[in-house]
């Protein structure tokens, strides 16, 4: 059996808790998370001893000193940070004697979703801002007619195999032109959804006492 396994998984519409559960599901088979690249390429390694639990926290810092103290507190409490993607932090138990959780009250757990929601909304504002800048300088060109995304001269006059060949060849580029144009807008819509979803989770969690 290989001692390392690699999994690619994007948690586009799932929340932090679901990602955490997925990571910890590998513990049953004796695998511990050892790294994540680009936010979706997970590396797990076979671990013979106790397989540590991974917990995700979300907290941004503008001050390096504050962040260092935060990480020190987690280390003192038996958690080591193995990855940080702009505030989304993956902590792993240093030993079996570490607590099972990083949140001991519902209220503090709920507040993590509030911070995440705020983060998503601020990113959304940034993407909207970019969109309007590109729109106002005229770079944004809404392509309402898909044919306009194909730039090969005389493409639509071709026929048979020649057309199919040229059409298929250019399709990826055409898609990129369409998606590229709408990229900032798509991101803004996506982040609105994420911000809204996490805010809803925050409200739901704060309603359950303790």
């Amino acid at each position, binding site marked *: 059996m290989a001692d390392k396994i690699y999994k690619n998984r994007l948690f586009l519409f799932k929340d932090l808790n679901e990602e955490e559960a997925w990571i910890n599901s590998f513990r049953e088979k004796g695998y511990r998370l050892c790294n994540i690249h680009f936010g979706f390429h997970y590396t797990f390694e076979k671990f013979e001893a106790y397989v540590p639990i991974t*917990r995700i*926290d979300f*907290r941004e810092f503008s001050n390096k000193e504050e962040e*260092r*103290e*935060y990480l*020190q*507190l*987690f280390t*003192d*409490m*038996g*958690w080591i940070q193995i990855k940080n993607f702009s505030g989304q932090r993956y*902590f792993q138990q240093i030993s079996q004697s570490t*607590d099972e*959780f*990083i*949140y*001991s*009250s519902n209220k*503090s*757990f709920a*507040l*993590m979703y509030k911070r995440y929601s705020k983060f998503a909304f601020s990113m959304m504002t940034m993407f909207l801002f970019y969109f309007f800048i590109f729109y106002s300088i005229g770079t944004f060109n809404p392509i309402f007619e898909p044919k306009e995304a194909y730039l090969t001269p005389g493409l639509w006059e071709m026929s048979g195999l020649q057309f199919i060949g040229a059409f298929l060849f250019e399709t990826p580029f055409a898609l990129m032109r369409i998606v590229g144009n709408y990229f900032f807008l798509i991101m803004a819509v996506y982040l609105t959804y994420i911000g809204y979803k996490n805010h809803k989770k925050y409200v739901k969690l704060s309603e359950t006492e303790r």
Partner: protein
Amino acid sequence: MVRHPALPLTETTYLILLSLIKPAHGYIIMKEVDRLSNNNVKIAAGTMYGALDNLLKQGWIQTVASKDKRRKVYQVTQEGLKVIKAETERMHALLNLADEMMNEEELEDGRQNL
């Protein structure tokens, strides 16, 4: 008497404030709260960080100078002490009330009326 607007406190907040009458950093606070509560109140890392951050913002605790360069050391402020006193008085009043109403004769009367 007008009650302090922040009362009642959660058990966790009350115990953190009590443990910070003497200066301490996060890990020591966790251990102290565990001890003070007879191992009933366990504060996890993320909850502890959030609680300290929140108490700082409310001005009930402050950071104090220490030799430990890697950890922030906290202690209650005058305002924090006021909150502890107010909460303790509130609980005293409740305890006295309970003692009064739970004394033997009252309980006996209550049983007879059933």
